[in-house]
């Protein structure tokens, strides 16, 4: 048991040794395989940053997404900045952010300059049709996994259902949902039996 616990803790020691270059390279890879908005990046962040590299926990990743919703800028960049800061303070923040924006810089400039006709190619369109469907499945798969850690107890179910209904019926903005959920955290628990 002791050994197991030790082994479990070992990767967090390794964490500090990740070079800025490797941080850049891994965020480059994650940016490259993000199709769509910041939410589409969540599955790959969960797999690469949480499960493979063990840079942070699922809970922390969701914290970063909640805060990234309500702060200026693009959510994918906000999440990358948070993770980079956690690993290497300011220099980590800068390398992670530069990593996540680099694929866009290269690919968009290429597409805009040379490959405009690439977008009209029938095979490319079919491939992207498939990817768009794949992204939906990836999002569902990720939420399914995170549900187990992110939604606990009756309070969790109520907040999830209320947020989903408010989004679906009233189309409230993400920032409104986050503020309401933050306020709801202070509603006292009526059932005293909860641990």
């Amino acid at each position, binding site marked *: 048991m002791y050994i197991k616990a030790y082994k479990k803790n070992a990767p967090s020691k390794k964490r500090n040794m990740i070079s800025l270059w490797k941080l850049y390279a891994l965020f480059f890879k994650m940016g490259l395989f993000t*199709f769509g908005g910041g939410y589409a990046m969540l599955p790959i962040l969960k797999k690469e940053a949480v499960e493979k590299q063990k840079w942070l926990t699922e809970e922390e990743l969701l914290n970063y997404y909640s805060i990234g*919703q*309500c702060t200026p800028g*693009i959510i994918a*960049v906000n999440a990358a900045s948070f993770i980079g800061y956690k690993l290497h303070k300011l220099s980590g923040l800068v390398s992670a952010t530069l990593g996540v*924006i680099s694929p866009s810089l290269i690919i968009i400039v290429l597409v805009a300059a040379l490959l405009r006709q690439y977008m009209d190619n029938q095979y490319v369109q079919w491939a992207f049709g498939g990817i768009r469907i794949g992204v939906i499945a990836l*999002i569902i798969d990720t939420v399914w996994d995170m549900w187990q850690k992110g939604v606990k107890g009756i309070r969790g179910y109520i907040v999830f259902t209320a*947020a*989903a209904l408010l989004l679906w019926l009233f189309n409230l903005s993400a920032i409104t949902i986050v503020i309401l959920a933050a306020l709801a955290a202070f509603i006292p628990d009526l059932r005293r039996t909860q641990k």
Partner: protein
Amino acid sequence: MIYALLFYEFFKIGLFAIGGGLVTVPFLFDLAEEYGWFTSGELADMIAVSQSTPGPVGINMATYAGYKTAGICGALAATLSEVLPSMIVIYFIAQALNKWQNNPNINKILSGLRPAVLALILFAGWSIAQETITDYKSLGIMLGLLVAMRLIKKSPIYFIAASAIVGVILHI
């Protein structure tokens, strides 16, 4: 000088567009109106290309708009200026979060937020699905991919590649 103007305008977008990539569209539309750097038709084109190329949509659009305005250096200027406000704000928030990570109230809020964020993420998937899942064929493919993901715990990279191949084979 065009780069200073690009810096100013895209820094502003980065600072005021709260909530992700597509929120920047109205700001870009204003730029098209005010400076004529690109037309609104080209803007529609940019949105389409940004959504179907690798990389977060918001970054792709900033890069494209900057490129249209002033070439490769314009692309660099626009993208870096747009992410700069995020980096500054997150830097201070991450510092504060570090300091208060054991504060019970902060933890109460953060864990209370998680179910809501999951609902937001699922809703984002639902919004994409409304445009993408249009018939039984696409629904079947989505469910098939989902089952494969639940059974085979592989990196999303493989599934992105697999769904591209499925798209080409089945002509989606």
